[in-house]
């Protein structure tokens, strides 16, 4: 006796959250059944393995049919085939677009192309996430990217509108799209200590302050591309380190203000010129795409690592950065105050976030 056909269709589509998770995680039906057995469900319900198998198959089939609709979530809301309560629809969408930290760190900043897709095998092996799940997550990134690129208006709003994600998840996707578009390098060994959250935080600041959208909300792609003019202008900041007088003045201003307040004052004093040079040079280099990509590598190399090697506590870094940014306003010979604020305001937030072990 073999089962040829075995289906269950409810007027309200049954969604089992646990099975959905297993499906999203890319487990095959048999693996999923094994995992469910291990969870002790048979003992709880008195069911048999055959029942579990049939149930899992049913859910997998349903999810497979829903997947097409999940690719364009508004369709899920308007379709007539599956009657699903709104709260469940939201859950289906949110979970489908959720991603694994380990996975996103692997592809963050990479071009969402076929080439990267080929690397998913390796990523899967490395992270222990099933290839199927990797593919879904990658395709989600790519799909969101495709839909929102060249779109007007706020990136987060666009994502929310077209994919009906929660605010938090939409922000994460905005970061992913922003990173993918600007191809920021995040995979270097130096950067391994950083979490997706760190990058997402920086991305948000950069979107708010450094993109076209920060100055003009009526252009295509406004939140995706960095403001080229702004990057060009950043060269002007070079004077802060090129002009020796200016650099000395800056240093003395900072040192005067921080004397006695900083645990690592002497280290700061000794390193001031290096640190300042590093931060300003990062800005000046941003005209080249290549250097834009290396932004985070540079920040870590030029600022985070030196401070860390001198064991600066985070509070001292905060004090220093505050003073370092603010003191520029007192430099009479420096004319690019607004530019400096736009640059340093964002960098300040980013650096604080990046500064941890």
């Amino acid at each position, binding site marked *: 006796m073999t089962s*040829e056909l075995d*289906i269950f269709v409810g*007027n309200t589509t049954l969604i089992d959250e646990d099975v959905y998770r297993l499906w999203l995680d890319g487990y095959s039906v048999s693996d999923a059944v094994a995992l469910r057995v291990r969870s002790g469900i048979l003992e709880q319900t008195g069911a048999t393995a*055959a029942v579990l198998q049939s149930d899992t198959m049913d859910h997998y089939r349903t999810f497979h049919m829903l997947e097409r609709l999940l690719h364009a979530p508004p369709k899920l809301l*308007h379709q007539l085939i*599956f*009657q699903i309560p709104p*709260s469940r629809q939201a859950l289906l969408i949110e979970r489908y677009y959720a991603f694994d930290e380990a996975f996103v760190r692997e592809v963050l900043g990479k071009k969402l192309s076929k080439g990267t897709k080929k690397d998913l095998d390796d990523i899967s092996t490395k992270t222990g996430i099933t290839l199927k799940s990797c593919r879904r997550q990658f395709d989600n990134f790519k799909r969101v990217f495709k839909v929102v690129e060249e779109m007007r208006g706020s990136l987060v709003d666009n994502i929310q509108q077209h994919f009906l994600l929660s605010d938090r998840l939409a922000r994460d996707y905005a970061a992913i799209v922003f990173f993918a578009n600007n191809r920021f390098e995040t995979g270097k060994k130096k950067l391994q200590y950083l979490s997706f959250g760190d990058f997402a935080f920086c991305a948000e600041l950069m979107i708010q302050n450094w993109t076209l959208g920060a100055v003009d909300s009526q252009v295509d792609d406004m939140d995706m591309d960095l403001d080229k003019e702004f990057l060009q202008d950043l060269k002007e900041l070079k004077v802060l380190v090129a002009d020796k007088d200016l650099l000395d003045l800056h240093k003395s201003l900072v040192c005067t203000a921080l004397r006695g307040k900083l645990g690592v004052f002497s280290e700061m004093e000794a390193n001031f010129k290096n640190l300042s040079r590093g931060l300003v040079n990062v800005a000046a280099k941003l005209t080249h795409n290549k250097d834009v990509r290396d932004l985070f590598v540079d920040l870590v190399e030029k600022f985070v690592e030196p401070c860390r090697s001198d064991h600066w506590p985070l509070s001292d870094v905060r004090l220093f950065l505050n003073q370092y940014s603010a003191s520029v306003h007192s430099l009479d010979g420096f004319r690019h105050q607004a530019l400096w604020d736009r640059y340093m305001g964002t960098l300040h937030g980013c650096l604080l976030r990046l500064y941890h072990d």
Partner: protein
Amino acid sequence: MPGKLKVKIVAGRHLPVMDRASDLTDAFVEVKFGNTTFKTDVYLKSLNPQWNSEWFKFEVDDEDLQDEPLQITVLDHDTYSANDAIGKVYIDIDPLLYSEAATVISGWFPIYDTIHGIRGEINVVVKVDLFNDLNRFRQSSCGVKFFCTTSIPKCYRAVIIHGFVEELVVNEDPEYQWIDRIRTPRASNEARQRLISLMSGELQRKIGLKVLEMRGNAVVGYLQCFDLEGESGLVVRAIGTACTLDKLSSPAAFLPACNSPSKEMKEIPFNEDPNPNTHSSGPSTPLKNQTYSFSPSKSYSRQSSSSDTDLSLTPKTGMGSGSAGKEGGPFKALLRQQTQSALEQRGGSPHRFCRRREFPFFTLTAFPPGFLVHVGGVVSARSVKLLDRIHNPDEPETRDAWWAEIRQEIKSHAKALGCHAVVGYSESTSICEEVCILSASGTAAVLNPRFLQDGTVEGCLEQRLEENLPAGCGFCHIPYDELNMPFPAHLTYCYNCRKQKVPDVLFTTIDLPTDATVIGKGCLIQARLCRLKKKAQAEANATAISNLLPFMEYEVHTQLMNKLKLKGMNALFGLRIQITVGENMLMGLASATGVYLAALPTPGGIQIAGKTPNDGSYEQHISHMQKKINDTIAKNKELYEITPPEISEEIIGSPIPEPRQRSRLLRSQSESSDEVTELDLSHGKKDAFVLEIDDTDAMEDVHSLLTDVPPPSGFYSCNTEIMPGINNWTSEIQMFTSVRVIRLSSLNLTNQALNKNFNDLCENLLKSLYFKLRSMIPCCLCHVNFTVSLPEDELIQVTVTAVAITFDKNQALQTTKIHVEKSLQRASTDNEELLQFPLELCSDSLPSHPFPPAKEHLESASSNSGIPAAQRAVTVEKASPMGEGNFRNRSAPPCANSTVGVVKMTPLSFIPGAKITKYLGIINMFFIRETTSLREEGGVSGFLHAFIAEVFAMVRAHVAALGGNAVVSYIMKQCVFMENPNKNQAQCLINVSGDAVVFVRESELEVVSTQQPTANCQPSCTGGEVTT
């Protein structure tokens, strides 16, 4: 009444990409009705076209309006080649033809293609203007309302229940026409869908005409079926119960229908019946003829050897084809028999000049209070026929004659049970190649004539009748003459009123009457059976089947009886026995809901007897089994809370002086065969069922009895509308369909292996359901409807549709407690009046008894007065399936952001926690789906899963477009699945029906009624408007 049909095509959405180059579609729409077609403009390059067409107007006869569906085709415009069809929508405009239903059909409909399934949606608005033109010769029956619901619809009152209406139409099946060889599968499927739609329209119109002739205005319990007879054609047939209904003005006032006896009564009901009814045996009617009147019908059935009271041993079913061999003409014998019975009838009622109704049948399963007087038992008949080509579709005489024979038989069985009517009546067929089994079954009953149009019972008699009826047990009292019983039954005095005789078990096809007193809860009971059969051709095949049928019926009933005893229960409701024929086997599946009726005696246990009593180990084995059985019975009694009042036994002693014992199961069934009294043998133990284990088969049977696992705790199941003993439903419901197909390993199949496979299939299916619905606990699966088919040699397909309803556990416990107390009380009060009839009942000896049964009625009536009213009050209050207030605490979650309105579907006639305020019309849809890329669509499971989901979606969309928010009395009448995995192909046909309704949550209703007391509320949750 010609009419003007107006259609507007508004927009489309989610259309498929038809032009690969642009990834877009140039869509336009053809609107067709009859022979007229209109087209919209082409909306270029869009998957969400906005046509916003003008109103397309069709001026048509109302006859066409009833028959024809509106056909909407969405196409992709192609400049150079033929336009590609995207899909179609068929809209049945019948709901627009009667005033109280929908006024407009408007909404998003899924665009359906038989090859690709649903491909986007289209927004359509349809209206009808009817003109009055009364001079025309009436061919149409606009205005007659149709209901699938098998009870009086909730917001109506039955003025008169006229009775049985039936009709069938036949046609050639387009799939088998020569042209099918040259047309595409799509064209063929569409031709079939369209034809069936046309035929059902025609059928409904014809039935409507009959109803108008009877002066009714509605058909209740309308059941329409298709017989796909293959080469020999396509039959669409329908049965129903004609009624005159009055709409209750206020949705809140649900008055029982019995308040106004009709003034129009003209004739005695079922005047052709030579048996005076038990109830008409008042003083005004002399009763001399009662005893003898049984004999003609009885001898008739004996002589023709064709009467199988469904439980009969007589191989009635074999009759048709069995005689074929002898007499050459296959159906002569039956025809003769029919004419004979017709003559007999005429002789029996010479003074009747006009027979308004041929068959006193009712497709209803639930009745207005007081309608059902007595229930006799299940009657059924089957007949095996060879299909031949239908030569003249306009004269479907053969099919008509076949059904007429069967119905005639049913009638005579009912007569033999002393009943003048059959309720809970249904008909079905099973077809395999050119052999067809026709089946009909129902419950013989005595009805209160007040509701029937041509009843002439004097007022005084009526009064007496009413007093005569003790509530809660009246229907259990035997309608037949105990001295002339049509079969050997084991009678006792009613445990409720102590006045009348009741059988020891009662089988019926109806729902549990609302006033019945039940102890504990009920449960689903199934008997499952397979029998191998040699492959054969034509007549030889029919004969083989005919020979097998009686044995199957016997065994099915044995199983049912055993399982019932094992549950400690004494009555079955909603019994449905399905016999399915396949190439090399027959399958029998009986489902029913077992309950413990307080009025019937406590069932005895099951006794096992070995054949070789000297063998020690064998004895031990037997006693071990016996213990197991006893344990199971005890466990079940606890599980289903069956705690009948013990006192009754002591007070009464045994009302039967000489309890008869039986050695074989069947004999003890009250509905069992009609003539084999001499086989009743005495056995040692009192009142016990004895299973004789004389071979391995019997052993298997006992084992299989014990393998049925009860549902996990928190679950109950039944196949009736509501579960006895549970009356505090919450509003959460989940309707579902589950389909399973298993392939049997063909090697050395034995009956036993087959039985086991089949049994496992059903049990596993139930287990799966319990598992899937575990989040709804505590819940009850109601209206569990199993259908079995044998699509191919080694395939068994089981389809289940049911609804899971949650209930409030705490309140359930409370009410049962009260309930038990009440029945205890009742038992004790009743006991005092007990010994008025120290009657000696001895049913198997039939000497002429001096006791006139009618007198008994009279006396009981006089001594009984007063009590029933009080009892009725109690039971009515208890039986209401939706007690006020039970639902307020838990209402459905608000669906605030949803853009698609929720449409509930349920096989029940009501929605828990809600009131139905309007019936919008019948939904009757037929779909075909075919694929040539089975693997790509996820195999057979993927294919059928998607198709059923699509069918649900289309039903919901139609209901929503009518302005409704639920379908009640939903059934999937057919699900024919065929596959050819080698060719990567599959095809499936599904037929569903139900009543589209508007319901309002009780909580909302209160708000509405306080705000605007008389509002005929159009509820806020209509959900019909699907907005973009």
